């Protein structure tokens, strides 16, 4: 796959701004996120990383008073024109706090496929097993798929949520600080998992943790608020470049821990 194809297939935004009522939270962001890579969004709290991430599956639609300008595209198609159900099937999401449903492990993973029309019990069983294996959780839960998802440990719950997301066969997985509520060992597992998943999925991750961004991501985007508290994309490049030779002094200051 040459470079151009990679870009056409990935996610991109052009002059994208987002407003909460009259407050501008994101200011004219343009970016091209490559497919089958992990892209990390870093920046201080309140810089709009999560709002930006949520623009790709239109989760911001749920907040009253949100308006946008510019474009968010996936595979070259504007997400605003897509059916939101189809969009969210294509763009999975993993949240900051593990949020398994108060249902069994099986039902958690089967929830998405059922929504999208898989009815047959044995087909569901196949999807559930495949998804749990991909999320590196199968060995830990295979003996009792009918216990509650809530009874798992935090790290297992988060991998269950990843399994739930990939069960609907998305192209993209958005991760909003997926390890911030987890201990270091569970965090490491999630990071290893992300590395395996990028072969099949495009991953965008928001993280507060710069070491994490440096460890797991191929590309890094640095965001910062301007004087009006609107989030701007300051710099985007390969993770190596951002962490070793940032071209913007603000990026350098943040990376080296001078603020944040």
């Amino acid at each position, binding site marked *: 796959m040459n470079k151009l194809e990679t870009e056409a297939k990935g996610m991109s935004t052009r002059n994208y701004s987002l407003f909460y009522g009259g407050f501008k939270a994101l200011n004219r962001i343009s970016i091209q996120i490559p497919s089958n890579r992990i892209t990390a969004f870093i920046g201080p709290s309140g810089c709009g990383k999560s709002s930006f991430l949520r623009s790709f599956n239109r989760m911001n639609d749920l907040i009253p008073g949100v308006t946008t300008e510019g474009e968010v595209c996936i595979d070259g198609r504007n997400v605003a024109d897509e059916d939101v*159900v189809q969009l969210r099937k294509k763009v999975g999401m993993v949240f900051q706090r593990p949020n398994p*449903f108060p249902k069994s492990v099986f039902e958690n993973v089967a*929830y998405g496929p059922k*929504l999208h029309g898989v009815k047959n019990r044995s087909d569901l069983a196949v999807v559930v097993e495949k998804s749990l294996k991909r999320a590196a959780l199968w060995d830990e839960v295979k003996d009792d798929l009918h216990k509650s998802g809530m009874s798992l440990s935090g790290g297992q719950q988060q991998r269950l949520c990843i399994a739930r*997301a990939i069960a609907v066969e998305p192209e993209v997985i958005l991760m909003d600080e997926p390890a911030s509520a987890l201990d270091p060992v569970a965090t490491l597992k999630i990071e290893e998992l992300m590395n395996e998943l990028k072969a099949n999925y495009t991953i965008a991750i928001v993280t507060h943790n710069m070491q994490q961004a440096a460890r797991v991501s191929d590309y890094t985007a640095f965001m910062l608020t301007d004087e009006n508290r609107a989030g701007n994309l300051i710099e985007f490049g390969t993770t190596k470049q951002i962490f070793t030779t940032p071209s913007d002094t603000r990026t350098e200051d943040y990376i080296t821990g001078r603020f944040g």
Partner: protein
Amino acid sequence: MNRRKLSQNAAFSLFWAAGIMSVLIMAVVVGYVLVKGLPGISFDFFTTSPRGGLSGEGGIYSTIVTTFYLVVVTLAFAIPPGVGAAVYFSEYSGSTVGSLTGKLVNLARFGVDTLAGVPSIVFGLFGYAVFVTAMNLGFSILSASMAGACLIIPVIIRTTEDALESVPSGYREGSLALGANRWETTWKVVLPAAFRGISTGILLSAGRIVSETAIFFVTLGGSYRVPHSLMSGGRTMALHVYYLAMETRAFDRAMSTAAVLVGLVVVMNLGINTITGRITGKQR
């Protein structure tokens, strides 16, 4: 011992006394009713109907049947609009903030809160004027259950709304992010998660129907016969207590009926405790 420790001990003693006091009051009331009422309770007491007249002879069979019918029919009227309105308020009205619909929603919320504080006899008078008289339904289980529904719908709305709002927003986000729409999310994730809280509210409402008297005095009439249709009048156990105490010489039977009522209320509260106990047991 210093002043701070003294005031701490004084406060603690006061609260302790207050706690003991409330338990004592309850024990005395319940104890009195049980001591006076239990001796009059026998198997026949449950299986024979009141005989009517000044003597107050007979059991409470027909009043048990009437109470049961009334609770079931009232809940059938009240649960769909009550739970439905709460689902709308909690799950759907968020996107209407600022619009005209949003203002109507606020007005409706205010109305519900107001209705929840209206004395039950007011609903009774309304039921008497509208269902019994204007709609010509007479003193009947139908009239009484519709008036009763007006009484408990605000309660069901509020308890259901509380139950829905205590469902973590992460469940909704998780479901919506998988491509579920609002209804699928509500039906498959939010309502099941809130089920126990909602059932608690419904059980509390059922208890309200069991224990109210004034509202049914003016809508259900006072027939001591076993009801045979929705158009039959009747008297609930609580109404029967009132009739026995005020219009017959059988005060002892009033006490016995009251003892049965107390027993029923205890059972219902145990039911609620089991339900809420399971919440804390399962979800933590």
